[in-house]
């Protein structure tokens, strides 16, 4: 297939290109990991997804580096990987007659925090929109490109998420 040849090409790039990717890695790795942590609520899962997304970018670095938004490419890859992970988890969960809810790093912290406890029950699409726009500061157009959605769909998801979070905040205040 094509991918090995692509990687071969990448790995044979001059040293400055490798340094170029390392610079990209250093700038993005932690921020990507944190974004995925907010989505997965697990450091281990977030680290794994971030690594995989960065490996895929590395394999295609000669092309990705020339794109308008290499960061957008990275995040879109990571979001797709997370979506696939959720599907597999969902399928696996359905196969079990009984199963315990997976442990997560966030389950045992600050459950009293209305926003967080509500965030984890938001549909994944809304949570992605919150992380990309509210935390990473992207606009709806950019988030839409990453999620494969129209900007208006991102705004709708955000609006619904904000309504749920606002309700949680008010309840928390009470």
């Amino acid at each position, binding site marked *: *297939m*094509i*991918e*090995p*040849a*692509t*990687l*071969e*090409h990448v*790995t044979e790039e001059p040293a400055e290109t490798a340094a170029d990717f*390392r610079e990209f*890695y*250093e700038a993005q*790795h*932690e921020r990507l*990991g*944190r*974004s995925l*942590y*907010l989505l997965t609520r697990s*450091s281990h899962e*977030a*680290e794994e997804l971030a*690594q995989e*997304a*960065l*490996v*895929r970018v*590395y*394999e*295609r670095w000669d*092309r990705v580096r020339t794109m308008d938004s290499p960061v957008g*490419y990275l995040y*879109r*890859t990571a979001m*797709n*990987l997370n979506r*696939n992970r959720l*599907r*597999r988890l*969902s*399928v*696996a969960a*359905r*196969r079990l007659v009984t199963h315990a809810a997976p442990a997560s*790093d*966030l389950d045992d*912290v600050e459950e009293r925090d209305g*926003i*967080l406890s509500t*965030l984890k029950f938001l549909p994944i699409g809304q949570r992605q929109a*919150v*992380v990309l726009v*509210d*935390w990473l500061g992207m606009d709806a157009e950019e988030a839409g490109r990453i999620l*494969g959605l129209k900007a208006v769909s991102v705004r709708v998801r955000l609006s619904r998420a*904000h309504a749920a*979070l*606002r309700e949680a*905040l008010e309840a928390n205040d009470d």
Partner: protein
Amino acid sequence: MTDLHDVLDRKARQFRTSGDDGFEKLIDRAERRHRRRRVTSGVVALAVAVAGSLGAYAMLTGGAKTDLGTSTYSGIWPQTTIEEAQIAQARANQGDDSLTHQQDAYGLVQTFAKDALWWTNVRPALISAAEAAGNGPLTTTVTGCTEGQMNTETDVLFCPDDALQTAEVTIERLVQRDPKGIWIVTAASVNGAQPSMHPSPMPPTESPGAPGPEDTTAAAVPSNVEAFVEAFIQARAEETLYAEEQLAWEALAAYDSNEGGLELYDYESDDGVSWEIATIEGLPNTDRWRVVLRIEGQGGDFPDSGVIHEALLVGSPGDGAPLKVLTAERTE
């Protein structure tokens, strides 16, 4: 929502990386995968070479039969005998949708590159109106990617430079020499050599007036193929891993990257989505089947029409191996 960013930021900082050697681990991971894929690509290349040889053999034996009765017939694709060509012409004249594209020179060259050479990202050279209105012989070129298109998680498609090829194709209206006459490939070369060609995936060419293609092909489909497809779509509708296990590498990559809008698991029967096999057609001279699925639902991931179609290529990926979905694409 001003608090939201702060709360998220505070929580995001709880993310812990596994160590300081993350970059080295990433490089190791990429190199391990690279080595594994090199082995896999060798196996795939061998399988493709064998398949190509079998296809070429089938075509040669088919062509030999033609020569017995019609030594002047020069068509090599998609119809390899004058009888097939005459039947195809008659069906095209009757408006058979599966054949009318052959009345268009550009369309035939495009189909030839995709279905006979198995190229992707196909781009025929433009054909002038005068040439298209003639009867040929017309020699033109078509470029394409020999190793399939790149399927990434982000729908980015490209072809490595060494996989980009150009074929020289000669076509002619061999049966009916007017604008309704079907074009047929009479010669093709890539880098001066005749390429390995796969037989036409077009439906069997019965005589006009014979029973319709649906009736005929339905009767010819082996029960194990139909059962395989039924089990595959049921697994998708129920979101079980069985569906993924029935995919060959290329199909898995296509679904995994959502290529062209492909989704493996988004159409659950619980959501009122209905599945049916629209058509199954055997590809001539092969043990492969082109299956078109019709998936209908409302809202969600569905377009406004509520109906989508997927075309699957089903067959054994190797000698004696069980059936798999070899390739998949959204057709509308």
